């Protein structure tokens, strides 16, 4: 039961993270610059545990697509357990801490993980309040817009099916 609940939560947060990245592309210049520097077709896969939710995203035609599956992601990350993923996606552990705790393995180039880490740190900076980010981020990023705007746009995006 606990495991099922953790998987459900992780699955929802993964969708929110993708949505937040899509919105932050319009709202935050650092996210925009990061994506604009990515090669066309750059892709990430994230496996969050055994039989647990997965995320496949690809940068293509100026948009971050959320795909059902990708055969050969350029960078494939695998978190070592559902419990770890749950802690990561509920603001209990940041990406640097996950690295320090050997929480994931990765196939691909480390430079691509660093790019993703910068994006995830920004997303966390917007989505989580300061009392959480001060524990999980090495440095709290300056916010360029009010986080409520990000939440508002994400909500709107889900309601209008923008991420499907």
């Amino acid at each position, binding site marked *: 039961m606990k495991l099922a609940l953790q998987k459900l939560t992780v699955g929802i947060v993964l969708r929110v993270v993708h949505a937040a990245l899509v919105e932050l592309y319009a709202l935050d210049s650092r996210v925009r610059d990061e994506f604009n520097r990515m090669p066309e077709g750059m892709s990430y896969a994230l496996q969050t545990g055994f039989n647990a939710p997965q995320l496949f995203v690809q940068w293509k035609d100026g948009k971050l697509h959320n795909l059902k599956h990708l055969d050969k992601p350029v960078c494939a990350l*695998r978190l070592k357990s559902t419990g770890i993923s749950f802690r990561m996606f509920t603001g209990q552990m940041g*990406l*640097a*801490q996950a*690295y*320090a*705790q*050997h929480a*994931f*393995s*990765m*196939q*691909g*180039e*480390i*430079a691509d*993980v*660093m*790019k993703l*880490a*910068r994006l995830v*740190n920004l997303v966390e900076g917007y989505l989580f309040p300061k009392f959480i980010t001060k524990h999980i*981020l*090495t*440095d709290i990023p300056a916010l360029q817009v009010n986080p409520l705007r990000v939440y508002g746009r994400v909500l709107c995006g889900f309601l209008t099916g923008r991420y499907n």
Partner: protein
Amino acid sequence: MNKYFEFQNVVKLLCGESALERLANELEHLGSKAPMLLSDAVLAKIGTMQQVVDAMEAEGCKPACTYTDIPVDSSLKVVNEIAALYRSSGCDALVAVGGGSVIDTAKGVRLVLSQNADDILAIGGVENLVRGTHIPFVVVPTTSGTGSECTGVAVIRNDENGVKMEFLSPFVQPDAAVIDPRMTLGLPPKATASTGFDAMVHAIEACTCLQANPMSTAYGTTAIKLICENVEEATRNGSNKKARYAMAVASTMAGVSFSNSMVGAVHAIGHALGGVCHVPHAVAMTILLPHVMRFNLERCKDSYAALLPWMIGMDAAMAIPAEKRGEAAIEAVAALSSRLNAICGLPLTLREAGVKQEDFAKVAEFAVNDGALIVNPRAADEAQVIEILNAAY
């Protein structure tokens, strides 16, 4: 204490005076009859490699194949080439004689062979590989710096874009390392000083980065003490076997330390300087260390202070007010590099190392994409890396 940490060192260490003579026996025990010997042109020319061959042959072990065209900072292409040669010449083990460049090349070759791959790029990643075929692998370090003989990482330059890539896997660790002070007797003073500083950076970054843990810190602090006590003597008087031995052990310990913790911004920026401007790794480390420590100080006051007794001794450290010990550790490091500069002309600025300021933007871009930055105690963006570079210019 860390919520969670891991520690691994599978390498058998053969340390001291007669270490080299035991290499043949070690290979035999690993099941090898036809080892491939890897080294570089300098070591082949000055006779260091031959010393190893002689010691092996004296005990009935002859290299089946030798490759000495390994470039400084290694190369993905060369790794693939050597793996193909290994297969075609029927070798059954790898022996690497050299500094970090040779050892890391050999680590790359071992990965390719054990994973039954053709191209190292296809198997790159972090902890992503299963054990694969066991390829017996022994290393003989000829510099006292990288500690690569005990680390779970290979740093290899991608010739196409100049990026120094990190391949992280426990399976790059050799079976055994021969730590013999005779191997570094001929290392020139500048190389002795700078590679010694590389080891110092490993230990300091390992003890102060986000991944530091009690085990890695135990190795790191002892390494710092040994380096501070011996690096000047080893630089001044290269034939002092005692100092050479201490430096060899110190760099190995610093390697164990950072392999089980991590490094930080000094390495991230140093790798980028190596990739973009071809600054030798150890030289970049020496120049950058005090500047990066100053950048990190706001987060590292206590962790730097804790290192001070290992650098200057307990009594001297305790004579400094507690709140000043963090800064004092930075000053101790800067003073050591200045003394080494006076002894052997070790470069202390990027300008002296031939770096051009117009390359800073590219260096910063590479540095923020280097994995070593992820656990640095303070995040750094490109603008902050450029500030550090300017301070070090």
